[in-house]
């Protein structure tokens, strides 16, 4: 039934499109030049005039009708549910639609005392819903028809259909970007609210400067556990340590491969190497994660022991190395783009002065591409800071405050994941801490991106 109404809107829009086109052409006797806009714009205009009100009506009717159906059931059975608690009433209302579906497909079946009320309610519900849907189809049809007539009437040769369609497209695009922006703001707000709840329990300075992190709280009053300390410094240090290791790998290799690809490699090699490199960045991080845990970490441990170093089974080094490898394509692909964007005329100018390729790269191309490269590196740092899976699998969960890359460390993202996985109540600081950590993460990446943006802007002004 619902789909019929849905279909009706589309069919009317379709009819509207072709009728409007035909009408516009008819009004000017087939001379397109006499129309304000091309005939198809009249078509789009009328189709939009049908689609928008049609769907608006459809969704309004759907949401309003379910609201009134509930009210009607509550009213009709008010004497029989008078002793229900509000939770029970809600559960009852939630069960009615499902139950009515089941009766329609399977018949009444065995009925117990308890389901009697549900059954009566669902019979009423099914009947009302049937009426509603019939009305929906009929009314949607009517609404579309009225819109069709009205819009078709508006079609005259001097109507500015193109401008109207354009302004509609403006609205669609503006709404899409508004959705993107508002969602981010919404997420930030929810983070802020939850983080403030956390900070009302744990002081900010203790969180930001405390050296011990053990968020385990007693789940039940009789359970023995730590009281929970929330000093996030070990997490910050762990994150920084792994990020630094990753960038130490990714920066030189990524940058040098970008230089090779853009200035040294033959066109043929570049044509297939660059896409391959970009595909590498599409490997899911969990794959890198088990590569880190199963291959790299044992290897590091083996060689560490050969050198007489105590290496933990999981280490910051393993996670950092693999994360670095993960970021290489990211760095090299972005840097390659900016290096290629340096005009050929600069390369020629340098070469004509007798500079070798290497001199040209170091003295002309890298400085000219500097802002873009910094931007690429900052974005890469942002990725490293936010990476979770590799660290979970390769670096462990123990919040050690250490700068030793051979030790187990943990990062902000890993702790967020650990705090929020499993059953959690949202009123204890252990869970709320995740929001505080997320807030910190958000600010760090925010500042990184802001810096990247400023660097790009500052130096771009200088270069062209």
């Amino acid at each position, binding site marked *: 039934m619902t789909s019929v109404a849905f279909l009706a809107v589309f069919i009317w829009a379709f009819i509207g499109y072709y009728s409007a086109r035909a009408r516009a052409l008819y009004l000017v006797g087939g001379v397109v030049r006499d129309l304000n806009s091309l005939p198809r714009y009249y078509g789009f205009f009328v189709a939009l005039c049908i689609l928008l009100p049609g769907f608006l009506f459809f969704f309004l009717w759907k949401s309003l009708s379910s609201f009134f159906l509930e009210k009607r059931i509550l009213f009709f059975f008010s004497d029989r549910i008078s002793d229900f608690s509000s939770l029970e009433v809600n559960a009852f209302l939630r069960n009615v639609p499902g139950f009515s579906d089941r009766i329609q497909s399977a018949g009444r079946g065995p009925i117990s005392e308890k389901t009697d009320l549900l059954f009566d309610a669902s019979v009423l519900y099914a009947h009302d819903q049937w009426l509603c849907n019939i009305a929906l189809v009929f009314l949607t049809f009517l609404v579309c028809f009225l819109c069709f007539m009205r819009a078709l009437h508006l079609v005259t040769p001097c109507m500015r259909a193109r401008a109207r369609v354009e302004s509609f497209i403006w609205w669609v695009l503006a709404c899409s970007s508004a959705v993107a922006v508002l969602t981010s703001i919404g997420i930030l707000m929810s983070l802020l609210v939850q983080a403030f709840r956390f900070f009302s329990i744990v002081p900010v300075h203790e969180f930001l400067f405390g050296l011990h992190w053990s968020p385990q709280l007693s789940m039940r009053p009789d359970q023995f556990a730590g009281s929970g300390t929330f000093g996030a410094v070990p997490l910050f240090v762990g994150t920084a340590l792994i990020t630094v290791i990753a960038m130490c790998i990714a920066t030189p290799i990524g940058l040098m491969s970008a230089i090779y690809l853009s200035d040294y490699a033959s066109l043929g090699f570049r044509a297939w190497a660059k896409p391959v490199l970009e595909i590498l960045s599409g490997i899911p991080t969990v794959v890198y994660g088990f590569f880190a845990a199963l291959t790299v970490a044992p290897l590091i441990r083996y060689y560490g022991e050969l050198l007489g170093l105590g290496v933990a089974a999981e280490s910051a080094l393993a996670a950092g190395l693999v994360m670095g490898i993960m970021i290489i394509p990211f760095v090299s692909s972005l840097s390659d783009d900016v290096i290629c964007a340096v005009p050929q005329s*600069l390369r020629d*100018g340098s070469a*004509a*002065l*007798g500079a070798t390729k290497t001199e040209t790269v170091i003295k002309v191309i890298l400085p000219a591409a500097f802002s873009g490269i910094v931007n690429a590196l900052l974005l890469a740092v942002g990725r490293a800071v936010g990476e979770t899976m590799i660290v979970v699998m390769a670096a462990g969960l123990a919040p050690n405050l250490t700068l030793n890359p051979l030790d187990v460390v943990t990062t902000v993202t890993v702790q967020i994941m650990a705090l929020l996985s499993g059953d959690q109540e949202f009123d204890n600081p252990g869970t709320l801490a995740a929001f505080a950590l997320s807030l910190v993460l958000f600010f760090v990446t925010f500042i990184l991106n802001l810096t990247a943006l400023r660097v790009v802007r500052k130096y771009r002004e200088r*270069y062209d």
Partner: protein
Amino acid sequence: MTDTQKCKEYFPDATGGASGCAVKLHGRDVNVFYDDKQVLFDVNLAIGEKMVTALIGPSGCGKSTFLRCFNRMNETISSCRVAGRVELDGFNVRDIDVVELRARVGMVFQKPNPFPKSIYENVAYGPRIHGLAGTSAELDDIVTSSLERAGLLEEVHNRMNELGTGLSGGQQQRLCIARAIAVNPEVILMDEPCSALDPIATARIEELIDDLCQNYTIVIVTHSMQQAARVSQRTVFFNLGKLVEEGDTTQIFTNPHDKQTQDYITGRFG
């Protein structure tokens, strides 16, 4: 063979500016290909020392490609292949180390292409690469005198640390000339150096070329026949990859021997 004899041999029709000079650059049977497409056919041309030679011809006739043979810039294009012999002072340019060759044969491009560095650094770039200055005072001297000779010093002497890219188009082109001069080359190749400039900036560059030919051999590719007539002593006309006619500029413009040349300079094609 003495210089004068050489001169007689290569420039039999030479008068005025071209007399008493030696051959600086010499292309013998130069053929150039882009992949399979041949763009230059058996070009033979001698270019005299310390004079201005203009290469003219319609677009795509191969004059820029020919110019780029002299400092081996065609090698930066992977699809380009040069056959034949190109000489600098009688030596095959392919036997000269490319770094040395380009220090001796400087180039100025069609579009001003200063590096995104300060004015000072732009000029100091070449001397630094070739280690021409032992001390920073020497480098300062080279930079100042190059800017001076390019006629730019007066305009920029109090803002040497500003970006070269911030100058006007004509100033940028003179900066590029200063940059080329700073390496103390023997030859300066100019590939349509004024095509991106307004008439006033063009006039300044042309004056500059007049001054520079006291000390340097200049080869200039130009689309403007008036410019060729104004600045050059010798003019060479190319068409469809072939050298059609060469001669003293006055002769080419007043009494061309070839029908194609005549058509071109009178504006009947190209």
